[in-house]
């Protein structure tokens, strides 16, 4: 049986670790709350944009917008030849399998694209993804770690701009984003979203172009689409960033809760072992004293 002093030391160590994980859990909970508000707050805008684009969109117009160009219709024949993949991970660890899942999804997608003979470049956001792909020695087209857990619209614009430009010029046939979709605090599946070419959002209620025909449009449906399509793309990047940030806190909270619970279990067992060891020691000491006294009487 382990010595009581040894056990005492381990109990203290587990207690201290538990304090840390408990605090991290509380911090994540409050950050999650705020991040969640941002996800919800971003929803009406995305919805409104999608709705209006859906109403204005028509297949005839699609030909004229480079952002809507489908890969099959590119000048160099069918299929995706050059693609870009943007992977969003967190800067910090201690959030369970969160980053591992995202990286796995990205690798799956890369393989899929490469199986189609597409030359794929990789763009990374977040330290965890960067260190993984550095380890595998893969070429990375761009990387950044400055976004953190409070992404802004400017961050999204910076990410979206070069990719949109290159897509419009025909240097890229497709742009995918891998991020954690925030369904709820406990359900955040890694998701691949094809942001470019834009998949025109379907108009609500199937009214389609007829809905738009009743509007007085200024300057024109084309001009409005011209302005709104880039905003729509930007917004998809923004949502990917915000949802991943929220999902990170959700994942960290779950991981820290599990760690705290495991700590409590360990403490119970250690405490019990310690008590038993202490009792055994006392019993033995008593036996020795009694034995000694007996011997003296002798």
């Amino acid at each position: 049986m382990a010595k009581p002093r040894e056990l005492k030391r381990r109990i203290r160590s587990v207690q201290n670790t538990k304090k840390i994980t408990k605090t991290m859990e509380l911090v994540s909970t409050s950050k999650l709350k705020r991040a969640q508000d941002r996800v919800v707050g971003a929803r009406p805008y995305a919805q409104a944009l999608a709705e209006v684009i859906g109403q204005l969109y028509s297949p005839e117009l699609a030909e004229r917008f480079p952002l809507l160009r489908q890969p099959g219709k590119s000048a160099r024949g069918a299929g995706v030849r050059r693609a870009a993949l943007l992977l969003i991970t967190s800067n910090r660890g201690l959030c369970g399998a969160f980053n591992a899942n995202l990286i796995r999804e990205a690798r799956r997608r890369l393989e899929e694209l490469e199986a189609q003979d597409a030359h794929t470049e990789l763009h990374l956001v977040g330290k965890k993804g960067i260190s993984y792909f550095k380890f595998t020695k893969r070429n990375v087209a761009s990387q950044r770690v400055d976004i953190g857990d409070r992404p802004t619209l400017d961050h999204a614009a910076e990410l979206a701009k070069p990719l949109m430009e290159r897509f419009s010029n025909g240097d890229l046939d497709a742009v995918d984003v891998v991020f954690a979709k925030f369904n709820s605090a406990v359900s955040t599946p890694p998701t691949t979203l094809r942001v470019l070419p834009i998949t025109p959002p379907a108009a609500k209620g199937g009214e389609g172009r007829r809905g738009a025909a009743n509007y007085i449009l200024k300057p024109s449906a084309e001009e409005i689409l011209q302005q709104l399509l880039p905003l729509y793309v930007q917004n998809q990047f923004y949502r990917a960033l915000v949802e991943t940030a929220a999902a990170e806190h959700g994942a960290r909270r779950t991981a820290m809760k599990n760690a705290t619970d495991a700590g409590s279990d360990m403490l119970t067992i250690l405490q019990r072992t310690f008590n038993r060891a202490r009792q055994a020691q006392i019993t033995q000491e008593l036996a020795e004293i009694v034995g000694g006294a007996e011997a003296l009487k002798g």
Partner: protein
Amino acid sequence: MHVSVISAERAVFDGEAESVVAPAFDGLVGILPRHAPFMTLLGEGVVKISQAGGTLTRLSVMGGFLQVASNVVRIVARRAGPADS
């Protein structure tokens, strides 16, 4: 009529109003109740929303669009926030 102002990050304003003046791409547009369905691009400037009882809300907006349909005005701006001074 119902007016909502939405920015990329959150809904900034949501409520009933008697008139709205907004900066469109080529000048100000005023919207009164029962306006015809209308859609225009926004420029940069201040949206003024007058509510019943004389309350005037001023919001600065940039980019995006304004949509009027069945007495609902929706201002969807890239950026929107309270106009300072």
